[in-house]
């Protein structure tokens, strides 16, 4: 990726969840949208893929997305908690993930049911 | 298509799409409650009916479609 700043920082990782903070200075916010910065939904998907790739220690890609539901918007500066459940099926991994506000598990931002390879 | 045949097909595709038991889809049951529809999944139902039956449910008509019987009548008269 050409940009020099990261979209997010990982603050904490444990077996249950990952704590993340969206970087306010990422250049994507200049274009999404001018004057009204909102994290593009597809970059949230990439963030989850990168987190799972870190868990598994190899680069993964989505082979299928059964459902990805954007429940609420994510803005620069938001602190988020990612819960992920990874099942190894041999030739692919099943991923169930929930992204919510860092301090409020009821404030769900995204629900994902997907497969990666 | 006979109405019975249409209803059978409708129950089958709705149960499949919204992951509910076919038995739960009774004519007098409430559509939104039975299939746990919200504003997003309601659009899925409209898209599915259009795709499978070629019937376009108009947005202003949606509030009048409360039960499955309402939906069957609406679609059948427009086939």
């Amino acid at each position, binding site marked *: *990726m*050409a*940009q020099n700043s990261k979209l997010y920082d990982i603050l904490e990782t444990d077996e249950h969840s990952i704590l993340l903070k969206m970087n306010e200075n990422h*250049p*994507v916010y*200049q*274009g*999404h*949208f*001018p004057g*009204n910065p*909102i994290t*593009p*939904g*597809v*970059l949230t*998907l*990439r963030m989850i*893929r990168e987190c799972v790739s870190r868990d598994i220690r190899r*680069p993964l*890609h*989505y*082979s*299928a*997305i*059964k*459902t*990805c*539901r*954007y429940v609420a*918007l994510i803005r620069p500066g938001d602190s988020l908690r990612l819960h992920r459940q990874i099942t190894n099926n041999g030739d692919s991994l099943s991923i169930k993930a929930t992204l919510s506000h860092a301090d409020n598990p009821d404030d769900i931002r995204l629900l994902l049911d997907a497969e990666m390879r | 298509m006979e109405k019975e045949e249409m209803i059978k097909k409708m129950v089958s595709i709705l149960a499949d799409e919204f992951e509910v038991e076919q038995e739960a889809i009774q004519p007098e049951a409430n559509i939104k409650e039975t299939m746990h529809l919200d*504003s*997003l999944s*309601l*659009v*899925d139902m*409209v*898209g599915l009916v*259009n*795709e499978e039956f070629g019937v*376009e*449910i108009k*947005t202003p008509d*949606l509030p009048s479609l409360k039960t499955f019987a309402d939906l069957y009548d609406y679609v059948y008269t427009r086939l």
Partner: protein
Amino acid sequence: MSIPAYKTNDITSLIPQRPPILMVDGFTCENEQNCQSTLTISSDNMFLEESGLLAEEGILEHIAQTAAAYVGHIRKLAGEDVNMGYIGDIKRCTVSGLMPAAGDTLITHLTIMSQVGNITLVSAQTAVNGQTILTCRMKLAN
């Protein structure tokens, strides 16, 4: 509703997204139910990975912006301003084949399946060099 065929390369007149995340460079609306878009991937595209290949999320953004261009086009025909749209959900998405690299052109065919209020459901198919690489259903909320 019946609308005339329409073609433009002036994408910023139809959607509010701007660089570095502008992911459509050509848009054709055939009729009220079908449209098509293109993107030739530049070497500085933000979705290019270390492997030199485009990430699948870049294709999903291209599809979302194609749906947004359709909505923007319809809004302009109705005399309304282009507004911001968000992805509501993505379903039945499958990714297969080799991802494109800089210089390749994405071609996306969109079928509008339904519109209820401010939510548009589309079915999308994206191909590169005649090979389908991604299909999905997507909802856009405007």
